[in-house]
């Protein structure tokens, strides 16, 4: 019985693609065997053995399947458009009679050379036209929308929806090539009324759904500057449904008055990004980056699931790149990660609480990463195990510096998030404590400007005032975007 070694590339040994059928495998083996047979003129016993070993595995359907699966599980298979790596803060833990903490960092990176051909975009631009958008905001949105038209391909689909108290489809989903329709829609944008996001979102989703294909990138881009009242839950469940149908949502907030927590959630459920646009002139650039991100998507609907040993639980999961956010871990230990784009690796930090009172090496958790390859809609499944040796006197290894740097930044983000939480609960004392701590750590890490912004808010809150919208957004989106050191 031949043994499978997933580290070896049997397909390469025979010089065939991973998709080769039985006949191709047989033929390739016969050619190689003739070429390398020790009895032939240019014989090479080692290469002959390699080819023979590969053939033994690949000619057997069951063994070949097992081999493919193992390679995929290790991220070695040619098929996966990205790599999946795991780093533990330690491989050795002391035996304790209580719970203890350990950290795992996951890196998911798109393979650079595997840039798939550009897929068709199917977009809805949902624009807030409430009164507050009057002036430079609306002017810049119009310019940005025109830019968008120029940067899209003629075969892409686009629709434009405007909303205030109600939604209006200004340009129903159509080929971008029909520029007349879109130009007049953009011209027809005039501000008036309030902000009801749900109506606008729904209209945008409907437009995208009508033209959605398995192979197209379906996405709603929401641009708003205000708060929606009373319809948040409806909007969030619409976003969840959209996420399940492979329709993404990005939420771009302009100015200081929009509800950051709500838009963050909306985007997360829809598998997209939320962004803070400080000045109207940034609208164009942010929108351009959004489109670039969408066309560079290599995988979508990424999700992690944790298979945990009985005495292990997940304490928290945080995304560290492309931006920091706390991720929701469901009862079934599932965490949705959204999509992956070229050049923007996704890094996730997992805190595990381990309660192990016996020695020896054990598998603490198995982490499964599932994703859908964008160009083919194939499901990809990769897997990593976390093994730890428990002993009374464990080896003390230094924590990898990159991990410390990432954790330090994630920790600062969490501190300021807790501050806003405490403030909402009416506990301003606790809020100032968290903010002061965040400021201290920001100074320690060398982010003076953000540290000072935090101290300014501390001053306001401790004098009984409210934090400013600008300060809050600056801190939330500033700490969220703390740059991570690369390896």
């Amino acid at each position: 019985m031949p043994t499978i070694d997933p580290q070896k590339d049997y397909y390469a040994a025979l010089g065939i693609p991973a998709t080769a059928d039985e006949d191709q495998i047989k033929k390739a083996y016969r050619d190689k065997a003739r070429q390398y047979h020790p009895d032939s003129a240019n014989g090479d016993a080692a290469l002959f053995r390699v080819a023979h070993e590969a053939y033994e595995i690949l000619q057997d359907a069951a063994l070949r399947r097992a081999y493919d699966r193992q390679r995929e599980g290790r991220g070695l298979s040619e098929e996966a458009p990205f790599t999946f790596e795991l780093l533990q803060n330690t491989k050795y833990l002391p035996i304790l009679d209580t719970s203890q903490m350990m950290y795992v960092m996951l890196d998911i990176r798109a393979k650079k050379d595997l840039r798939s051909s550009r897929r068709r975009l199917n977009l809805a631009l949902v624009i807030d036209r409430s009164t507050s958008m009057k002036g430079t905001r609306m002017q810049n949105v119009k310019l940005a929308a025109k830019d968008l038209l120029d940067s899209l391909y003629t075969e892409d689909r686009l629709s434009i929806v405007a909303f205030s108290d109600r939604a209006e489809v200004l340009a129903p989903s159509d080929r971008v090539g029909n520029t007349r329709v879109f130009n007049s829609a953009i011209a027809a944008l005039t501000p008036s009324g309030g902000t009801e996001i749900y109506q606008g979102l729904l209209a945008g989703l409907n437009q995208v759904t009508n033209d959605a294909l398995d192979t197209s990138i379906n996405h709603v881009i929401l641009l708003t500057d205000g708060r929606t009242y009373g319809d948040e839950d409806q909007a969030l469940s619409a976003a969840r449904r959209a996420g399940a149908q492979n329709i993404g949502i990005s939420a771009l907030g302009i100015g200081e008055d929009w509800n950051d927590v709500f838009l963050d959630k909306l985007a997360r459920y829809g598998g997209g990004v939320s962004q803070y646009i400080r000045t109207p002139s940034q609208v164009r650039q942010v929108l351009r980056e959004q489109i670039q991100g969408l066309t560079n998507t290599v995988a979508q609907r990424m999700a992690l699931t944790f298979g945990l040993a009985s005495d292990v639980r997940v304490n928290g999961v945080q995304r560290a790149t492309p931006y920091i956010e706390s991720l929701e871990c469901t009862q079934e230990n599932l965490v949705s990660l959204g999509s992956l784009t070229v050049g923007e690796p996704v890094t996730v930090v997992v805190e595990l609480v381990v309660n192990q009172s016996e020695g020896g090496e054990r598998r603490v958790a198995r982490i499964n990463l599932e994703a859908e390859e964008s160009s083919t809609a194939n499901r990809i499944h990769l897997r990593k195990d976390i093994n730890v040796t428990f002993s009374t006197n464990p080896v003390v290894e230094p924590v990898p510096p990159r991990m410390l740097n990432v954790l330090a930044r994630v920790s600062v983000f969490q501190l300021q998030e807790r501050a806003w939480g405490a403030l909402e609960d009416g506990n301003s004392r606790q809020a100032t404590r968290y903010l002061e701590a965040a400021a201290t750590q920001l100074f320690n890490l060398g982010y003076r400007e953000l540290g000072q912004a935090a101290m300014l808010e501390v001053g306001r809150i401790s004098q009984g005032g409210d934090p400013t919208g600008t300060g809050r957004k600056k801190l939330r989106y500033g700490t969220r975007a703390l740059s991570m050191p690369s390896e």
Partner: protein
Amino acid sequence: MNQKGSKIVCPSCGAENLPGTLFCVQCGTYLPSGGPLRTEPLPDQEEGRLARPRQEGKEEEIDNRVINIEVEVLNTGRKVLLSADREILVGRLDAAHGIFPELDMTTDGGLEQGVSRRHARIYTRDGTCFVEDLDSTNGTFLNDERVTPYLPYAFRDGDSLMFGTMRMKVHIYTNEK
């Protein structure tokens, strides 16, 4: 035999954290060293793992423990006696930004002589005193050599320290004296 899994008490805010925690949940302090991130002294087995809280009045094993550091500011002749059992921040007071240095150089003309608000920190570890520059604008000098920011440098009794252009002499008082 199982070790007692005692909680880590954060040295700066007193919150309890699970063993193995790297950053205090309440205040973000890096627990294995009890100080800023970039200056972790190599952990020595037990202690590094369960960064123990400092316990006042506890019998100390190390004989030549540093109790006090006296700093003499040479241009004004001011002498400051500092307790070595906690970290000493050197800088200039700035209440608006919450900077309250233990060694405040404002009255010695710190601003004019190029002392940053958060200039450096001094601390002791296992009987040795360290100075660490906090990426100050004009630098910290140990015996006239500029130190690299965020790296601890050991100094001895009688050494000369310079913050910006402000020079001072340090005296270390240990149990032995």
